[in-house]
Structure formats: C-alpha cells, structure tokens
C-alpha cells in the first residue's frame, strides 16, 4: 500500500448547513485519503454525513472549510472553466435512486451521451451513437436499448444506465452513493459484480457509500465509519470488520443480520454508549495500528492500543 499514489485527499472537511437560526454540522472535521485503484467504503447510519461527504468531494456543495485535493489540486480553488471541466471529467457520480436520477423525458442514448456532449468528446452523430453502444455493451445492456426511455427499464437496468453515464467520459474516480440500496438482492450482486469488473478494466477508484455493512465489506479495500458528521474509524476492510477498535463500529457490526440461523441465535448485540468518554475533549484521528485510525482524545490512545492488542 505504501507505494500507492493518493488520488484524493480530504483534509478537515467541514460542511455546515444553516437551518433557520441554527447550524447543522453535517460533516465536521473529516479527513481521509483514497489511493488510486482502490475502493474506499464509507458507512454510517442515516444522518451520519456520508452522502454529504461524497457530494462535497464532487463539489456539489461549497464546503464550509477544509481542503479536497484531487490529484494534487485543491478542488475548491480550481480556476477557469477548463480546469473545472477537467475535474468533472475525472470525477463522476452514481446515484442511489435509479428511478429519480434518470430524466424520464430523455432517451437512454441522450442520457448517456450528455456528458460526451458537454465535454465535446464526440465528432459527429454516428460517433456519438457508436460510443453509446459501446457503453451499453460494457454495462451488459444492448444497442436496442439506446432509443428507449427510462420507464421501460427495471431498477437494476436503470442502475446500469446510471453506471454507463458515469463512465461515458472515462473518469478516474467515481463516487457511488448507495448504488444498490434500491435494488433486489439478486440484482444487487449483479451490479456490485459489474462495478468490480469495470474497476479492473478501467482502473477506476471508487468511493462507495452505503449502510449495508456486509456489502461494503465485500466491495471495499478500506472502510471509514461515520457518525454524526464525524469519521470515527478508518482501516482496511478486514481491520474494521474483524478487529474493530471503536465501540461504535463494534455496535454497528453486531447489529448486522447474518444469513445463517445458528449465528443469529447466538448473536450478542453490543450497545454503543457514548458517555464512556468525556464528550467535550478535543478529538482527532490517531493511528493506533499502521493504517488503522480511530478518532479519540490524546489520553484515550492507550485504551485503543490495548483494544488492538487484545485481538492478537
């Protein structure tokens, strides 16, 4: 992992929203890196700020504070149309709801080619059609689908269209915001497998946002756990799952239902108690094991070091 290049660095990202007179700290001081070619999973419950983080990274919001560095350049300080267009060519998004994210009045061809048009990557109509057909084949659809409208497709097929659209302009990095939550189990596996296959073929990097922990574990190389706008734990998928350090991560994992009746009968849930530590202390991410971070105060490091040792 050491020689791997960082494609994205998120540094102290803060995203606040004004709601009436108060401020909601949707994302509060979140930092992590994503390496080229990996899948970084972001998990957390609703309201934890995982979606907001993904959207802020793509500059769909103006961050309140912090830096987002994509391939060495601060996304918030891109100058001119050209630089901004380049960033949005390299970084794309797949949305959660395949029913809401496709314009019902556009044909599949127009939906997929919209990015190609904007970024002027096609010479003529025939070329446009050819590219769309290539993309459709890539995601397991056929050329007959190009002239149809979104309502003619099932949820899984729509999500494939969404993936084809994201891939149209050859991005390097894709934010996938709960891309499978709206799909049936058998279709979820299809889409996840497709995403994995495309990642290998196209050398893609993913930020995979989801609340389904078992699926995140399956697809991710590294995982970050969020709660109330803060990143609590970051590590490899194996570390976070099999050797979680933060109590919240433990409680989250203990709540995941496993499709195995014997395991379920024995399951012990761990309740998360956030009053264990003084909540007022300043906290930041500390590296407990190489590459395995926990958000804690300076004097709590020992506690987590011990926790890490208990797994050995």
């Amino acid at each position, binding site marked *: 992992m050491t020689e791997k290049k960082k494609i994205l660095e998120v540094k102290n990202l803060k995203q606040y929203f004004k709601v009436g007179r108060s401020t909601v700290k949707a994302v509060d001081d979140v930092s992590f890196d994503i390496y080229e070619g990996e899948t970084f999973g972001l998990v957390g419950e609703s309201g934890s700020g995982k979606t907001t983080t993904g959207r802020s990274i793509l500059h769909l919001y103006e961050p309140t504070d912090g830096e987002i560095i994509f391939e060495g350049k601060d996304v918030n300080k891109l100058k001119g149309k050209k630089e901004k267009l380049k960033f949005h060519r390299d970084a794309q998004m797949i949305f959660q709801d395949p029913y809401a994210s496709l314009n019902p009045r556009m044909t599949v061809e127009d939906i997929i080619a919209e990015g190609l048009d904007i970024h002027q990557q096609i010479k003529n109509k025939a070329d446009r059609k050819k590219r769309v057909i290539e993309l459709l084949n890539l995601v397991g659809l056929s050329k007959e689908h190009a002239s149809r409208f979104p309502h003619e497709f099932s949820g899984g097929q729509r999500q494939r269209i969404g993936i084809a659209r994201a891939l149209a302009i050859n991005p390097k990095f894709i934010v996938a915001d709960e891309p499978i939550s709206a799909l049936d189990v058998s279709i979820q596996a299809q889409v996840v497998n497709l995403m994995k296959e495309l990642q290998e073929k196209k050398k893609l990097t993913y930020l995979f946002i989801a609340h389904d*922990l078992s*699926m995140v*574990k399956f697809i991710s190389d590294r995982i970050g756990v969020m709660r109330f706008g803060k990143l609590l734990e970051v590590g490899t998928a194996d570390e976070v799952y099999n050797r979680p350090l933060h109590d919240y991560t433990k*409680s989250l994992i203990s*709540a995941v*239902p*496993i*499709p195995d*009746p014997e395991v379920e009968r024995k399951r012990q849930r761990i309740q998360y108690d956030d009053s264990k530590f003084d909540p007022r202390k300043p906290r930041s991410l500390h590296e407990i094991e190489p590459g395995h971070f926990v958000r804690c105060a300076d004097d709590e490091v020992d506690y987590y070091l011990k926790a890490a040792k208990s797994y050995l």
Partner: protein
Amino acid sequence: MTEKVLDVKNLKIDFHTYAGDVKAIRNVSFHLNKGETLAIVGESGSGKSVTTRTIIGLLAKNAEIVGGEIDFHGKNLLATKEKDWRKIRGNEISMIFQDPMTSLDPTMKIGQQIAEPLIKHKGVSKKEAWKKALEMMKAVGIPDAEKRINQYPHQFSGGMRQRIVIAIALICEPEVLLADEPTTALDVTVQAEILDLMKDLQKKIGTSIIFITHDLGVVAGMADRVAVMYAGEILEYGSVDDIFYNPQHPYTWGLINSMPTLESEELESIPGTPPNLLDPPKGDPFAPRNKYAMKIDAERKPPFFKVSETHYAATWLLHPNAPKVVPPAEIRRRQKRFAEMKEK
C-alpha cells in the same frame, strides 16, 4: 399437534391492467401455525406483499381473486364482506407496513392513534384506552411515554414511529400479525432493536407472525419457517434450518449465494430478471435464469417434492430420475453443516 391459525389454499390473483391481466399470484398455498413466525422471502414483484394484503382484505381495486380459499377459524376470508372486514382488521389480524413515515396519521396525536383500535373493536372507554395506550408505549420502548403520548408523528424519528406502528398493530392482541418489510426503511442498529422488540412481544402475546422481507439475514434471525416466493409462486418451504442449510431449489441457492457473508470472496449473482407475469412461463418460472435447468423445466411445472416432514421444494431436480447436480460451493458448505447438525 400444532394448531393452524391460517390456511391459504390455492390462492390465485390477477391484476387487470391496460396491458392485460397480470397473474400476480399463481396457485399459492401455505399455512401459519399458532405462535410461529413464517417468513415469506422473495424479490419485488414476487407476490409476497399481494399475498399478505389479501389476508387482510386490502387488495387494490383492479385485483381479482380468481380462485382459492383462506381459512381463518373455519371462515373463508376471501368471502368476507367489507362490513365484516372491519371487525377483523386491526383486531384479529393486523398489519405493520414498510414505511413508518407514511403509515401514521400526521394530524392525530399518537396516543389517539394507539387507543383507537381498542375503542373501536373492544368497546373500551376512552379513558381506559388511553391508559392502555400508555402501557403499550412503554412496552414498545418509547421513553418518556407520559409526555410523548400527546405528541404528533412528525416529532418522532423513524425507529420510534415504527415502534408506534407496532403498538397500534398489537394493542388488540391480534392472533395474526402481518409485517411487510417492517425494518427495511430503518438503520441497522434500529432494525436490530425493532426485531428484538417484535420477538419479545410475540412471546408475551402469542401472536403468529407472517414476516415479509427480502433480507435473508433478517429471516435467519426471525423465522421459524420460511417460504420462498418467485414470480407469484412458492418454490420452496421448510423450517428456517431446512432453507438455510439444506436448500433444494436453484432459486434458493441463488438467493443465498448472492448475499455476501463476512467471509465470502466472490458473489454469484443470478443472471437476468424475473419473468413478466402478463405471460407467465409454463414450467418452472425460474428456468430461464437457472443454469441447472433441464428440458422439462420449460415445459412442465414441477410439483412439490418432499425433502423431509417439514421441507418441500418444487424443482424437477428432486425427481428420482433427475441427474445429480453439484450445487454451488457455498450451498455445499451449508449442506455439510446440515448433515453434521442432524448427527447431533
């Protein structure tokens, strides 16, 4: 001898649409034992929700019950008139819906909503019902119940709202509770709490539950028995151990295989999509997506073959003349465990 609370026999339901008749339920039979939880698993469009809605008499206007019978205490529910349904619904049979955000009345205090079934069905006085509602709120784990009984749904979180919905459904201590994906809209930690709550209350009240979900993890933790539905038919049913450790139908294999376990390295997805029920397939409905399919699967519907006293599956693979196929690795692993469990 276990007592049958509900017996569904040869249920057939069509939906009339502009495109033609959608044969949503095609000859479905199952029963529910007293005090047990029966999980019906299946993908969207498999007919699991339509089946439960039929049991509580809430089918859409364009639905037609083509045939069958639902026996509930010697009474055929399918022949029940709307007037009589009102005595059953919320009283003897109640239902929890998927989305707690839309299944409560936003203009009514939640105390009123919980107390209403008692007043309507049991003729309890308002004051008494209010007291019972308060007890019920405590039973479903709503903190600060004395204060919150006077609040409105928008003042509650999703998990709390689902607790309220459960309180409403169970206040008359119904014999049968239908739960249609009651935790799908909730976060995992909240889901775990709600499932524990349902199990607790079931023990207390002795309600029989039909639990509808597509999450096999939830099924493994909740169900006593499982029925697997696909394209309007039940393909396999058995005890929870039968289905998870000794599945027989290739569709059940596919479902189990497409769920990541914490160890899985690869996910095997089921190719293709479910059939169009405007023109349902003649044979095994799963045949077009089934790599183990034989010629006969496309031509003739397989009957239920008996695997054990509790376990039946509708697949030609169980016919004595069928060739032996090797199920996927994950299924073989589970079947090995099943054999070990049997020995003990």
